[in-house]
């Protein structure tokens, strides 16, 4: 995906510049962009290290595990066909919590394991034939609506680019995030109830 996108961006830019005579600007732009990427990384080093350090405390002190327990009733409601004790449910819960705390590197492995577990424990036999189950669809839509408590990267970018208040977007982003997550869940529940009878697992 990115291979194509990256090549297209460069090709379109350079061809367009050749047609419009902007080549000198492009030449400068290339070098200054590369330099800028490095100074951005320096800002991000600070913010990211701070955040992952805090999250390590949250993990080791049992805070993350506590939150995982707290959302169990919600997960049960969201995935009525999945056993609470099953591997799939454990992985899905870990994935949701990791996403909420902005632990991307912990979220993806758990999410992928959840998908495998969902496939293996599907009783209808459809998943084995390559058809997504209701639980898989709901899980992915949830994952894509991505309820994140604090957009750490965004704060780092904003502070690097001279925002007067880099953290000012936390609450607005949280509200937007809540609304789109609620809409996503409503969508899943509606589709599931329309296909009632097949809404298992």
């Amino acid at each position, binding site marked *: 995906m990115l291979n194509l996108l990256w090549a297209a961006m460069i090709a379109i830019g350079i061809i367009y510049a050749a047609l419009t005579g902007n080549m000198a600007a492009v030449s400068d732009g290339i070098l200054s962009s590369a330099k800028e990427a490095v100074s951005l990384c320096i800002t991000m080093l600070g913010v990211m290290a701070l955040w992952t350090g805090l999250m390590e405390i949250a993990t080791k002190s049992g805070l993350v595990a506590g939150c995982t327990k707290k959302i169990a009733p919600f997960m049960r409601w969201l995935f009525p066909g999945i056993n609470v004790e099953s591997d799939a449910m454990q992985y899905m819960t870990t994935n949701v919590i990791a996403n909420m705390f902005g632990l991307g590197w912990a979220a993806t492995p758990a999410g992928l394991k959840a998908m495998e577990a969902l496939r293996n424990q599907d009783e209808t036999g459809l998943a084995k034939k390559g058809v997504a189950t209701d639980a898989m669809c709901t899980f992915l839509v949830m994952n894509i609506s991505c309820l994140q408590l604090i957009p750490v990267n965004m704060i780092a970018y904003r502070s690097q680019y001279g925002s007067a208040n880099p953290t000012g977007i936390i609450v*607005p982003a949280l509200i937007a995030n809540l609304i789109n997550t609620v809409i996503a869940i409503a969508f899943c529940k509606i589709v599931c109830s329309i296909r009632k009878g097949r809404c298992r697992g």
Partner: protein
Amino acid sequence: MDFLVATSTYIIPLVIFFIVGYGVLNKTDVYDVFVEGAKDGMKTVWNIAPTLIGLMVAVGVLRTSGFLDFLGGLLAPVTEGIGFPSELVPLTLVKMFSSSAATGLLLDVFKEFGTDSYVGLIASIMLSCTETIFYTMSIYFLTAKITKTRWTLPGALVATLAGVITSVIIVNIF
């Protein structure tokens, strides 16, 4: 927006206070653990640095060639009719495919318009509440060997559209 911004400034200090406090109460060696975790964060940034350099150069080429302005001008009549800034159309579309490419475009928006401008605020909120639909779907379904994805894509698009619309509304209201 002012009230939300003011509330937001409390969040980071409170979160840090809460996490460190919780750690101390549960007898965690908070500082040692913090340092250990911070190393991971540095590794993460170190690993994404090449990606960022590559993509920021590509976006730099697009920007300086004038192509992004050309595209924005082309789309302006359509998007302005519905109250969506045309400068953010490329960003919204790219975000569905690649998070890092979207970051490149976002930083370009920050540079052109400022982080706290109307466009900058919408972009900040929008990118914080949307996900890379196609990338996520492809790796997750590939893992589970699923080819018929049923209503996942419509659901994902509904969630993303809701996020984009809400971002615009929030910035307009507050």
